């Protein structure tokens, strides 16, 4: 499988605090990679560096062969980023929002329409797309912004806490969408999450972070075997407490 993301020794500091220390990992096309860690572990910093919003102090990452340091504008053409708790333009209707995002990624009208249709299908909001976003529930907004993240069929979709604050059913719907898009369109996903169950059921690979470094990395099954645990929560506890 083709490499979608190749992270090579990236590091980032905020003043004296080292948020990310020499992290390297890879994600292949169609693969879902889950980043787990406590608050302040450095997950969001990694995602923001890969989304070209922050510049790594050292190291580099290549998305579809493009360097986030040397050619960030090329990187932006093959990624999408969903920040934690991200909102949408509240005065727009859901339909207008998806059309607006499609317009950012494609100049050709036909491609824009295809992109929008995919977004419309993925979010599953039906007639509600005609309503303004400020009338949406949290779950509806999250489905809408997830749809806009995957509808341009990026090489890599970066999702920060995609199900944060959602109820069980909405969370299940979101996970289903992520898996479907990875399988159908070959999109690689990098997602951060506090929910071990989410990572266990969604991700092909996972990593546990603490204080800016990867303490453990592998498929959920490999991690369970390696740490002789029944759940990823147990693995997480063992890894973090023993570090």
């Amino acid at each position, binding site marked *: 499988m083709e490499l979608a993301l190749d992270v090579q020794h990236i590091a980032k*500091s*905020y*003043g004296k605090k080292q948020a990310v220390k020499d992290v390297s990992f890879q994600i292949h096309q169609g693969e879902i990679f889950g980043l787990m860690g406590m608050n302040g572990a450095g997950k969001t910093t990694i995602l*923001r560096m890969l*989304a*070209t*919003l*922050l*510049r*790594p*102090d*050292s190291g*580099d990452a290549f998305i579809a062969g493009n360097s*986030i*340091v*040397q*050619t*960030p*504008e090329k990187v*932006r*053409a093959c*990624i*999408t*980023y*969903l*920040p*934690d*708790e*991200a*909102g*949408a*333009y*509240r005065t727009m209707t859901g339909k207008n929002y998806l059309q607006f*995002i499609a317009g*950012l*990624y494609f100049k050709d009208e036909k491609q824009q329409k295809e992109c929008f249709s995919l977004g419309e299908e993925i979010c599953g909001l039906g007639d509600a797309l005609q309503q303004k976003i400020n009338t949406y529930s949290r779950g509806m907004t999250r489905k809408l912004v997830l749809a*806009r993240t995957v509808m341009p069929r990026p090489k890599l979709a970066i999702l920060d806490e995609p199900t944060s604050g959602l109820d069980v059913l909405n969370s299940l719907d979101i996970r289903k969408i992520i898996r479907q898009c990875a399988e159908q369109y070959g999109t690689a996903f990098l997602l951060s999450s506090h929910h071990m169950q989410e990572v266990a059921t969604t991700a092909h690979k996972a990593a546990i972070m603490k204080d800016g470094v990867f303490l453990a990395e592998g498929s959920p099954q490999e991690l369970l075997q390696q740490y002789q645990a029944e759940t990823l929560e147990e693995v997480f506890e063992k890894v973090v407490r023993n570090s």
Partner: protein
Amino acid sequence: MIHLLKKELSELLNKQMLLGLLLSFILIILFGSIMTSSVTETVDDTGEVHIIDQDQTNFTEQIKTHLEQQGYTVLIINENETENFESELSAHAWSDAVVLPEGFTDCLLNQHQLCQIQSLTELKTTSSIGIAFGNTGSAEIVSSAIKEILSETYLVDELSFIENPVEVTPYTIANGKIVQASSTALIGSLSMFDQLMPLILFLLIILTAQMIISAVATEKMDKTLETLLSSPVSRSTIICAKMLAALITALIYVIVYGSSFFIAMLFNVDNAADNINIAEAFTGLMNTQDALHTLGLQISFWGWIGVIAQLFLTICISLTASMILGGLVEDAKGSQTASMPILIFTTFPYILSMISDIRNMTSPVKYLLYCIPFTHTFIATGCLRFHNYGLFWGGMIYQLVFLAVIAFAALKLYQSDLLFTHQFASKKNKQS
């Protein structure tokens, strides 16, 4: 109660707010003292009466003594021959004067006729407030003094003569030229543009700044800015689109505000113009438009193009500065105070240009105000009307350079970590 109060205060009095407050404190003291000294300077002048005495009689001496007894400082030029009043005023740095012509005393005391005196007013600014501050009203003061002297000292029988012994012929001086016209009438006809334009500009700057700062801050809070900045659209396109949208919205506001002011002022000016025309017909004063033309106070077509260009540059500067301030906002509270620097840097040049002539202020103050790019637009029409072309075009070049510098800074900010971290990044990796 104390517990809650502490919590509320700690939320309201954050580091960003205190820093903004400190900056405002320094700027208000600085500009406040400039305004105070400017007003004091002009108020000091209002105790002066300027007389060009071509008659030089005991009676004209008596006028001087009478005025001094009333507490005025009377400054007199005893000139028999001079007709070049504009250079006399300029040489003595007077903004106005009254001319007592040769034979004035004879006319008044022996012939008991309505006697002519001339009122000279030099226009240095087109702000009616500035003129009201700067003009000492010498003609009115001397006329009253003559009436008082006649009624107290000279027992003239004709009551109607004592009530109205002199007729004041107004002369206006500007750009080294003189016309027989009332300065009030000339200013009235210019105030439409020269006072309305700075007001509209002031509103425009404040509106656009507020719009941009709150738009960027909202995008940051909603994290839609992160979505935009990670999309395949260049940062400069994002910045330009935001600025252009604010500019268009602001222009709509300005058209609505401006047209309402224009209609209201047009109504008043029409009435005033009717009165002026009647007065001109009776007194033989020069037609207002002819007078403006003779004095060189009219702005050419290319001059207006230059004024519009400065307006546009000023708005662009305000928008770009607001993009920077909005980008540095950390939370919703910060967005409320972020526009303070723009508000201060706009308000003071605006007020000072209304109440004083910035071009004639003392050097350090003047140059300090010239450093604020908005100042140049507030004084633009004044520069053109009073033929200060160097300052006008120099101001425009300065605005262009200023815009280029802050546009570069805005672009760098939106390409940097500072937007999200509010900390300067180390320079190990250079991102293109």
